[in-house]
């Protein structure tokens, strides 16, 4: 998949989201949908299954997001499925988040935690990351059970890792 295709989709989605005044919601929901697509094998294989009619796969997206996501998000995700480029979803979503953040002079901070963070924790974490990196951040939290406990935050090229998984790996290496 070419970068040009990704950029084309991102440009189109950005314009549509801005036109509908739903950029914040769309980029956040696309980000979460992309993470679900990456981690859920059943969802991924269903959306990529070319033996299923496109309408059926689009229906899966609509049922998955319906009532829980902005209508624009549903339409854009459905469009990706309809054009047969659903495999671009993670790249498109990440690029959309990056562009949306850039518009707001923010740096994307991807945070992985074994459990979900509440709003207060998200706010405090965003502030802490901004203080640590010197950049205002657009926090994106991914619930990733593989980290076991703690948090790993990636801001640009900087990675702050304080997860149980990493500590166990270090213990394992010492054995």
């Amino acid at each position, binding site marked *: 998949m070419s970068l040009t295709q990704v950029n084309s989709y991102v440009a189109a989605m950005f314009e549509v989201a801005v036109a509908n005044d739903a950029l914040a919601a769309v980029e956040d929901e696309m980000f979460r949908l992309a993470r679900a697509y990456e981690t859920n094998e059943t969802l991924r294989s269903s959306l990529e299954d070319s033996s299923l009619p496109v309408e059926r796969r689009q229906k899966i997206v609509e049922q998955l997001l319906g009532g829980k996501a902005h209508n624009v998000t549903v339409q854009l995700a459905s469009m990706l499925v309809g054009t047969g480029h659903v495999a671009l979803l993670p790249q498109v979503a990440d690029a959309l988040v990056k562009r949306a953040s850039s518009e707001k002079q923010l740096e994307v901070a991807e945070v992985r935690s074994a459990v979900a963070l509440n709003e207060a924790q998200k706010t405090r*974490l965003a502030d802490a990351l901004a203080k640590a990196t010197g950049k205002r951040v657009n926090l994106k939290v991914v619930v990733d059970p593989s980290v076991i406990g703690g948090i790993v935050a990636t801001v640009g090229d900087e990675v702050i890792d304080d997860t149980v998984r990493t500590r166990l790996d270090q213990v394992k290496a010492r054995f």
Partner: protein
Amino acid sequence: MNALSVLLAAEDPSQSHHWLFPEIGEIIYGGIASVAIFVLLYRVGWPMAKKALEARTAKVQKELDEAAAARRQAETDASNIRTALGDVASERSRILAEADAQAAALLNEGRARITAEVAELEARANAEIDAARSRSGDELRAEIARLSAVATGDAVKSALDDRTQQELIDGFISKVGAGR
């Protein structure tokens, strides 16, 4: 009929002057004719006969010469064959000796190669036994480490209740906020 009668009458011995001797004229004519025949035979017949005899002699001599040549050729061929038979025998002996030498060389080479291969196999087997011993030790240590890590992980995971998870998160936030 009259002519026949005359002829018979002429041949009738009773008509000659003597029962044994012919007439003088007949003797003269007969003698001359005989001499002429002898002369003719001597002049014509004898050269022809001589020539025929000479040709016959030459032919016989030629056949004798050819027979002699054939005999010589046969003797030469027989000699060559005897020589060739002798050569075949010596070639056979040479080939057999050469084959014996090659077989002996191959046998020696094979023995040496097998000995070397056996030695190499023994060395390799010994090395593999040593490696296996070492590997078994390493694998055992690795397995112990893996099991220890799994046990540690399981123990940690079982200890990670929701309160601990929240404490880890809050601890992370505090640490990052404090400038790590």
